[in-house]
């Protein structure tokens, strides 16, 4: 089965030994999407790794960038401002919802429920619109920076966010009504693809999968990062560890993630959006003429991709001091120190230097514990970046779930474990 098969999303090859309709033996062959992420990371300056992380789990890219940046910041000894931390949490949770929506939608479609697929992908599109507003891109977001995030919230984000959530809730309710007591669906998912909790732990499985077996392990609870220890949310668990439990856990987590985002929008400290911006090219011209005095209090109106990176928002979302983050645009255009600082950051072999050492930071990814183990030798590039992909651990246990079942169950099980090849093969 695979690597190209209509009922399998993602390139992976399963070699199944069959006895009639029964699966006797199975072997998983991976690596079709290997892009040498870890090797590339060693050849790029610290901040240039962030776009690569978007391609790991491409359904929830914002969580990957957050994990990587947190690990580098741990080595740097930098804590980003509170508003920046809240922004990262908002970004992560939006991503988690898109991840779970995609997983439920795709696995339902593979079992024949095409309507559910359309409803949930439509809901995902509402969230992609939000992510687009926030980061400037739908999927390849590159939102996190070492020492902060790209930009502050765009105007009217809160209203759009709540409107999108209403749409998501409606779609999830529809999906729940269509599937949860549906005989055709239940027959396929109940009692198939079972893994006991002891086996799941022995295979190092984390995330929604482990929680579906009844172990409430969540990195956000056991190793709280950012501001998760201040937010209220539940950790939904299943009991049987079958495909049905994984589906239920994901639906419940969608609601919890939206709850977290709503709390963040309420609790996050205010940024400031008071001064009207001045066109950046005009500012650069004034700067070149030496008229820097009048620039000090103005905000730079920049192009779409740099929106929100001006000084007003800079202080609230990025760690202070030169060395880690790019200076705000007003200083770059308006003062020689700012300009030099900016050049030092972007010149090849210059830029951010991270003190020698090692750090491991786990975050809760869409599929479980996503860890970044980072080694630095004090230069401007990472010495080694190890990504612990939660998918890999699930895929290693896949034969245990498939053997003894029917061929038809392969599709149901493979859908519910949510294999993301970008993350699995790196």
């Amino acid at each position, binding site marked *: 089965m695979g690597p190209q098969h209509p009922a399998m999303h993602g390139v992976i090859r399963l070699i199944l030994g069959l006895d009639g309709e029964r699966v006797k033996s199975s072997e998983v062959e991976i690596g079709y999407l290997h892009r040498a992420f870890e090797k590339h990371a060693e050849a790029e300056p610290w901040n240039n790794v962030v776009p690569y992380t978007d391609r790991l789990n491409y359904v929830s890219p914002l969580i990957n960038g957050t994990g990587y940046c947190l690990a580098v910041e741990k080595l740097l000894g930098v804590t980003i401002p509170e508003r920046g931390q809240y922004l990262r949490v908002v970004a992560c949770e939006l991503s988690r919802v898109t991840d779970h929506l995609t997983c439920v939608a795709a696995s339902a479609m593979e079992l024949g429920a095409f309507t559910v697929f359309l409803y949930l992908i439509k809901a995902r599109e509402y969230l992609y619109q939000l992510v687009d507003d926030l980061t400037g891109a739908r999927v390849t977001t590159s939102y996190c920076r070492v020492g902060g995030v790209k930009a502050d919230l765009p105007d009217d984000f809160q209203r759009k966010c709540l409107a999108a959530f209403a749409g998501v809730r409606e779609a999830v309710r529809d999906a729940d009504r269509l599937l949860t007591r549906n005989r055709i669906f239940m027959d396929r998912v109940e009692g198939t693809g079972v893994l006991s909790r002891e086996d799941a732990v*022995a295979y190092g499985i984390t995330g929604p999968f482990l929680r579906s077996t009844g172990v409430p392990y969540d990195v956000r609870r056991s190793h709280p990062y950012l501001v998760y220890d201040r937010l209220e949310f539940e950790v939904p668990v299943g009991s049987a560890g079958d495909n049905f439990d994984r589906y239920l856990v994901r639906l419940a987590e969608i609601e919890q993630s939206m709850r977290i985002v709503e709390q963040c929008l309420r609790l996050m400290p205010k940024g400031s959006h008071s001064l009207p911006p001045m066109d950046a090219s005009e500012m650069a011209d004034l700067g070149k003429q030496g008229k820097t005095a009048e620039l000090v209090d103005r905000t730079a109106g920049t192009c779409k991709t740099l929106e929100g990176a001006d000084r007003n928002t800079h202080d609230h979302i990025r760690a202070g001091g030169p060395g880690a983050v790019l200076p705000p645009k007003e200083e770059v255009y308006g003062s020689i120190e700012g300009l030099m600082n900016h050049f030092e950051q972007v010149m090849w072999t210059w830029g951010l230097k991270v003190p020698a050492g090692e750090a491991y930071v786990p975050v809760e990814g869409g599929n479980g514990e996503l860890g970044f*183990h980072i080694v630095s030798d004090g230069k401007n590039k990472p*010495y080694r970046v190890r990504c612990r992909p939660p998918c890999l651990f699930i895929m290693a246990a896949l034969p245990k779930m498939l053997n003894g079942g029917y061929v038809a169950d392969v599709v149901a099980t493979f859908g519910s474990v949510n294999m993301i090849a970008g993350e699995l093969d790196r």
Partner: protein
Amino acid sequence: MDIRKIETALVFETLKGLKDQGYNMLVDLTAVDNSARGRAPRFEVVYRVASLDLGTGLETKPRVEVRCEVGSDPVLRSARSLWPIADWLEREVWDMFGIPFADRPDIKRLLLYEEFVGHPLRKDYPIAKRQPLMGPREEPEDGVNLNRVRQKVDYE
């Protein structure tokens, strides 16, 4: 994080001891090639273990990192018997770094294909190196050859 540097020969016993103390999850197994930093032996292998309470979902003890330094000789013992996931993680370490395991002489690559020459995460592997393109693989006699070129069939 509790980091323990262990003699290579004692790694398996240490891991077994940790397993018996309740460290039921192998969180990660990876390696670092220190040859570019002029260290010998060149590799450092890192085992990261956690003890998870199945009821509360919390970790009962701080995580432990077991580290050891190895060269390219097969001296490490496989941890498959302790945690089944070590099977794949060891395959990845072999694939990417070429670190062999004493009791796994015919270990298979995990991400790359068998014909790949070299181990890409070694520091002396050039990042721009090209590998020759592979043709269709010959399938064994009794298997189904999926790469077979379509034959011309005479219809009756």
